[in-house]
């Protein structure tokens, strides 16, 4: 009885630890995601690339599709 109560207590502590960890991990995930979202935004990239002299294209890329003759 006392033994099982103790194991239960131990489990509670472990759960608390783990849920703290998930919280931290989620926070880390979002933090990294935020950085990614912001760095990959076109306005940011345009700003960075402006230093090297590159700028947004005026014309779209061309997609060449090869149709094979049968």
């Amino acid at each position, binding site marked *: 009885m006392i033994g099982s109560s103790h194991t*239960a*207590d131990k489990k*509670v*502590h472990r759960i*608390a630890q783990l849920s703290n960890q998930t*919280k*931290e991990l*989620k*926070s*880390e995930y*979002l*933090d*990294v*995601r*935020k950085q990614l*979202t*912001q760095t990959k*935004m*076109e*306005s940011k990239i345009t700003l960075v690339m402006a230093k090297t002299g590159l700028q*947004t*294209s*005026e*014309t*779209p*890329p*061309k*997609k*060449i*599709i*090869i*149709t*094979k*003759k049968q």
Partner: protein
Amino acid sequence: MPNNEKNILNRLYFVAGGMFLFALLIAVKLIDIQFIEGDAYRALAAKNTTKNVVIPANRGNVYADDGSLLASSVPKYEIRFDAVTVNKKDFDENLVPLSKEMSKMFGKPASYYQNILRKARSNKNRYLLIAKRLGYSDYIRVKKMPLFRKGPNRGGFIAESSTVREHPMGKIAERLVGNEDRNTPGHYSVGLEGAYHEQLSGKEGRRLKQKISKGRWKPVYDENQVEPQDGHDVISTINVNMQDIAHHALLKQLEEYQADHGSVIVMEVATGEIKAVANLGKSRNGGYYERLNYAVGESSEPGSTFKTIALTVALEHKVLDTATVVDTEKGSVRMYGRSISDSKRGGYGEISAAKALEVSSNIGFARMIDGAYKDDPKKFTDQIKKWNLHQKIGIPIMGEGEPVIPEEGDALWSKNALPSISYGYNLQMTPLQILTFYNAIANNGTMVKPHFIKEIRSWNKQVEVFKPEVLIPKIASQTTINKIQEVLKNIVLRGTGKSLYSENFSMAGKTGTARIEYGNLELWLKDKKYVSSFAGYFPAENPKYSCIVVIHKPSATKGYYGADVTGPVFKRIAQKIYTDSPLRAEVAAVDLIDQATKNDFESYYKKAQQRSVKIPDVKGMAGMDAVALLENLGLRVHLKGNGTVRHQSLNTGEKIKEGQEIILHLS
């Protein structure tokens, strides 16, 4: 000694009696505690060691159309410092390095942090605030600083986390997504967060818990509890890229024209999905930020963008044709005692109705519409009402502005009302409402309801899907629509929007420049205030997106015409969408083998296959081929110039030394 014996017996009786009485008292008290006050005590015991804990539900996320996160809940950390628990040696040793680290991270000089840490120690402050609202990575950084890394007991490091709403996109689209109410945490009323609060918030659970060591609580039962239900996720129609472009294009124009505020909406023509909404207002220090949801909430006089609507009414009633000629005279006429003027000095003279829209002639419209409807203005306003432009669209977001379309008999009505309405005054509409009409024109007459949400999900399960909603299947005949589309296209080709024309991609739309706050003409003339707008769609043929840009109060000295102020924002978005969709070129492929190329490749292949110990002859070879060849032989290659190799610094046939440098001159 019988006397003595009796004496002892008496004493014994007395003691026994006393003990019996004592026992009785205990029994009475026991009964009292157990049965009479028992319930109260049992309740007290339960209260001190168990509690009914509320398990908060996780709030759902808001996503963009491609699955990028727009809003999510994350823990944020508040760091405090217990200056008493740290021993003297640790404190003295770490004070300087810690202050330096803090200075690096938080910006103020190290001496400042040294000071506040010292002061906290002498004041025995056990709860000194170090930093608030730190994200995870910053929190970890602080946790690893000298002294703090020793932990809570030796290092005095205290971290408290709380859940806050985070927007990975930053300030972009903040108004549309919405924020937690500042004064009442946990409540959301604005934006998408407010509109879908119920779905996002979920249901909180309950569970009975008992106190155990270390201040933790363990559940008492396995069942008998309310399970928390996490909130659903909301997938919006917002496109991160378009939002980004719209935001920055608007910001650039606002800054250039030092305007008060502005908004942009981009809508998908066929479905009514809102792809971007940017709202920027000037702050007190002159910068711009997402201030209010102007796009949805601000109802004002639209000015010339309304002329398109007026012309559509007249064409649909067949009281006018695009070829109908109207005399705009010399640019200034009086109607019902009020003077109306056109922006071009000297006027446009006699022009067609189509031309009147192209050049945005106020006189032309006042005369045409007044001429056609002065006897029955209700016919004109009723048509507008048929298109539901006189009432809110009914979007779920709070604060949609109320349009005002006066009609005959209203307090706002006068003889002048009809001509004024024809060129966009004496009535009010929000940018979203105007855009809904232009979108219908682009959509060949089908008016769809603008919507912001694609679906509501719970994990990977769809809870609710939002389909495009048709408001009016056909607002006007196809002939009318075709004519209006043609004129809108010509406006960019040769009308008021011609400065926007691009040979690469097509656009159609109408400029607008409206005076505001003109009640007191003298005041207005001193400080001219305008609203510039541009509403339209792109590409001109088979439109994909419609868009409206509205900028309030640009600095009149810098410019105020719709084409100059708002047009570039429109163009930038159109260009972005154009450059994002690749052109397709189909090539009938052929397995033709070019003999020269083949020979070239074979000779190169032969050279590449030889694990030569001597420098090969690379003269005449293309630069990139030479590099591959030489680097595979273990040489370090330096290139000068572009093209084919003219000169190589090491002669052919020399023995190769590992890591040797060779310089190739190309031309």
